[in-house]
């Protein structure tokens, strides 16, 4: 079995109240206004989407929104949830991707990194030290 050595970088302390949540710094760029903002987004392996944002923050960066008929519908145990969706450039560590930001069509939303973004990065959750780190080849 091949062994690969990875080095941790850009470690961020878990956020919020106990039990604290692993989170990463994410920078969002609006493709039209070129405005950018850095936010701390919780890692949510249960969320299938891209980057969920609080509604007020989403409104600032959703200049290039998709038509409502292209919004994604997520199935939750409480029923389907529709998320608004806009194109944005998202930076996590050294990774820069053209992806999407999302927010609930109804309700306030939260800052969460979903699986569609998590699949593009290597991270380590260091539970004992309560740190979430990006990984790169050593």
């Amino acid at each position, binding site marked *: 079995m091949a062994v690969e050595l990875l080095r941790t970088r850009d470690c961020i302390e878990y956020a919020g109240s106990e039990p604290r949540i692993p989170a990463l710094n994410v920078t969002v760029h609006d*493709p039209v206004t070129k405005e950018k903002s850095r936010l701390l987004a919780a890692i949510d392996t*249960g*969320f*299938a*989407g891209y980057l969920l944002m609080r509604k007020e923050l989403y409104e600032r960066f959703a*200049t290039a929104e998709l038509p409502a008929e292209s919004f*994604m519908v997520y199935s939750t145990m409480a029923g389907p949830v529709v998320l608004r969706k806009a*194109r944005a450039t998202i930076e996590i560590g050294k990774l820069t991707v053209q992806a999407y930001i999302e927010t609930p069509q109804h309700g306030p939303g939260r800052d969460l990194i979903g699986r569609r973004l998590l699949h593009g990065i290597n991270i380590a959750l260091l539970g004992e030290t309560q740190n979430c780190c990006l990984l790169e080849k050593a």
Partner: protein
Amino acid sequence: MDVLLRGIAKQTYGRLKAEAAARGKRISEALQEAIEVWLYTREKQILSEWEANNRAYLQAKRRLFSEHRGRYAAFGCGRLLGVADNFDEACNIVRSAKIHRSIITKVGEEENTTGGEWLWSSLELATA
């Protein structure tokens, strides 16, 4: 919570105080109401623009599909702003229109709107 406000125009504050007194309300209650109305109005404004852009998209959709498939259409202020060959050009169209609410879509791109599973992981403990 307590908030200290500086720089409020004397005349505006005087009118607020008089209106609050006439309605038998405290200044804090009147301010709270004013803030809520302001936020509601702002949300309504954003929503109506959003609705207008989506309506314009649906009206133009058939024509766009037959004439501009594969190109990028930009909508704003409730109308089609223009059609571009790529996403960056579409962004330029919106930028030069100096608007902050728009729809940019690739014409004819079949989007799968099935987001997938959203499990229980976003739930947190809350006091009842």
